[in-house]
C-alpha cells in the first residue's frame, strides 16, 4: 500500500527551541490517522508543518523531508498555494469568514478562478452534504455564517475545506470546542469522507481516536513514540510510554 505522505527525519525548531525531533512515519492513504499525545508535545506543530502554515513564523525552521506525490513539500521551490489546495486544514476554533454560507464554501473555488455557476452549485451541495450540514442550511445559504452555532460553523469550515477537493485533510483538534452531538456528527462525516480522502486528525481525546481512527500515532515531547493500526495499539501497545498514556497516567 503506497503511503500518501512520507515523513522522513522531520525536526522542527522555533528559534533555538526544538519542538519536533526526527519524526519518521508513513501516513496510509484513504484512512483516518489520529495523532494523540499530551498537550504541548508538538502535535499541532506537526500537522501545521505538513501544509506549511508554520512558514509565517520568522523563527520557524524545519529539517528533514515530507514527501507527497514524489516531491518534498518542505523544499523552497514547492508552490505553497497548490500544496494547500491538495492538503486542506480544519482548525481547532471554527473560523468561518463573515460572509454567507455559500460564499464561505465557494471561497476556495473562486480564488482559483472557477466561475461556472453550475459547477459551483454542484460542489456547494456536495461539500455541505459531505460535512453533514446540507440538510440544516439548504434553505439559508445566503445567511451570514456567524449566525450558525459552533458545531455548525465547524462543519461549515469542513465543507469549505472539502470544496477544493483536497487529497488529504488535516484537522487540528476540531471538536475540542464543540458540543458532543455536533462532535458525533463531525466524526460520522469524517468516517464517510475517509473513503476518498486521507484524514490526519490531532486529538487529545483517546475515546475519539478509539472511535474513528484506523491508525494511531502517539507523540510525546516532540518525538514519535509509536505508530500502528488503531486496534492493535489501543489493546496491546508496544511501548511502555504508550501503555502508560493510554491507561490515563499522562494527558
Amino acid at each position, binding site marked *: 500500500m503506497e503511503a500518501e505522505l512520507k515523513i522522513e527525519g522531520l525536526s522542527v525548531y522555533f528559534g533555538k527551541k526544538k519542538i519536533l525531533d526526527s519524526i519518521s512515519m508513513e501516513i496510509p492513504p484513504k484512512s483516518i490517522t489520529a495523532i494523540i499525545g499530551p498537550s504541548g508535545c508538538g502535535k499541532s506543530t506537526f500537522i501545521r508543518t505538513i501544509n506549511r502554515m508554520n512558514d509565517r513564523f520568522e523563527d520557524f525552521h524545519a529539517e528533514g523531508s515530507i514527501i507527497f506525490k514524489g516531491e518534498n513539500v518542505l523544499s523552497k521551490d514547492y508552490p505553497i*498555494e497548490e500544496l*494547500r489546495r491538495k492538503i*486542506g486544514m480544519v482548525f481547532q476554533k471554527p473560523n468561518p469568514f463573515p*460572509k454567507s454560507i455559500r460564499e464561505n464554501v465557494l471561497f476556495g473555488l473562486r480564488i482559483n478562478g472557477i466561475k461556472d455557476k453550475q459547477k459551483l452549485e454542484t460542489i456547494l451541495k456536495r461539500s455541505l452534504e459531505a460535512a453533514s450540514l446540507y440538510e440544516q442550511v439548504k434553505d439559508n445559504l445566503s445567511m451570514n455564517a456567524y449566525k450558525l452555532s459552533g458545531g455548525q460553523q465547524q462543519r461549515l469550515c469542513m465543507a469549505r475545506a472539502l470544496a477544493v477537493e483536497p487529497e488529504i485533510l488535516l484537522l487540528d483538534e476540531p471538536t475540542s470546542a464543540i458540543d458532543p452531538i455536533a462532535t458525533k456528527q463531525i466524526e460520522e462525516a469524517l468516517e464517510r469522507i475517509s473513503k476518498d480522502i486521507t484524514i490526519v486528525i490531532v486529538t487529545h481525546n483517546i475515546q475519539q481516536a478509539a472511535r474513528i481512527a484506523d491508525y494511531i500515532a502517539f507523540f510525546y515531547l516532540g518525538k514519535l513514540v509509536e505508530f500502528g493500526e488503531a486496534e492493535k495499539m489501543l489493546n496491546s501497545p508496544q511501548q511502555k510510554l504508550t501503555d502508560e498514556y493510554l491507561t490515563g497516567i499522562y494527558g
Partner: protein
Amino acid sequence: MNFKKRILKERIIFTIISILAIAILISIFSIFFIIVSKGIRVINLTFLTSITSFDFKGIPTGGIGPAIMGTFIVTAIGLAFSVPIGILAGIYLSEYKSKGHLFNVMRMMVSNLAGVPSVVHGLFGMAVFTIIFGFGLSILSASMTLAILALPIIIMTTENAMKDVPIDLREAAYALGAKRWQSAFFVVFPVAFSKIMTGVILASARIAGETAPILFTGATLYLAHYPTALNEQFMALPYMIYGLVTTSMNINASVPFAFGIALVLVVLIVIMNIAIMIVRSKSRKSLQGG
C-alpha cells in the same frame, strides 16, 4: 486609622481631578456655545448660497457659496488622490509582514509624514505644484498639497484597521490555498472596511479645516464667482475666516460674518463625525451576527 487617612486621600485626589477635568469640559462646551450663538445670527439661505461681496465700507455682504463649494471641491480632489494610494499602502504595510528594516523605515516615514507641520506642507506644495509643476495658484495645487497631508492619516488608519482583523480568518484563507493578496483583498479588507471608511472621513474633516497648506497654493479672499476651473484660484471656508479677521478692510464688521463661516465649518465637521459614529455602530452589529 491609617485606613481612614487613605480613604480621605482617595476622595481628595479624585475631587481635585474631577474639578480640573470639569473645568476643561466647560471650556470646551463654551467654545461650541460661542460658535453657535455668534454664528447662528448670520446664517440664512442667502448666506449659504450667495457669492461674497464687500460694500464700500468694507463690510462683507452676500454669502459664502463659493467658499463652501471651494472647500468641497478641494477636499474631494484631495481625497481622490490620497485615498486609493493610502488604502493600498496601508494594506501593504499590514498584510506583508516585516522582513527586516525596510518595513520599519517605511512605517516610520509614514508616521513622520503625519507629524509634518501643515505650513511646511504648504511650502512643499508651493515649491512643487505651483512652481515646478506649473499649476500656479489653483485648485489643483491646493488639492494635491492637501492630499499629501491626508495620505499618512489614511495609511495609518487603514493599517490599524487591517491589523485589528483576527488572524484566524487569514489562516483559514491561506489553508485554502489563497495567495497573500487574495487573502488581503477578499477576506481581511471587507472586514476592515468600515474602520477604513472611518479613517477616510477623519481625513476629510482634517483637510476641510486646514488653512496653512492652501495659503500659498491657491486660496483667495476675493472671488466674485463660483469656482469654474481647476487651474483657478478658489475660496475656502477656513481661509475666509482667517482673511476676514486679519486682512480685510473692515475687521470689526467682518467678525460676525466670520463666526457664521466658523459655524458652517463646525457643522460640516460634526456631520462627518456623526457619520463616523454611525458607520462604527453599524459595523459592530454586523460582525456580531445573530
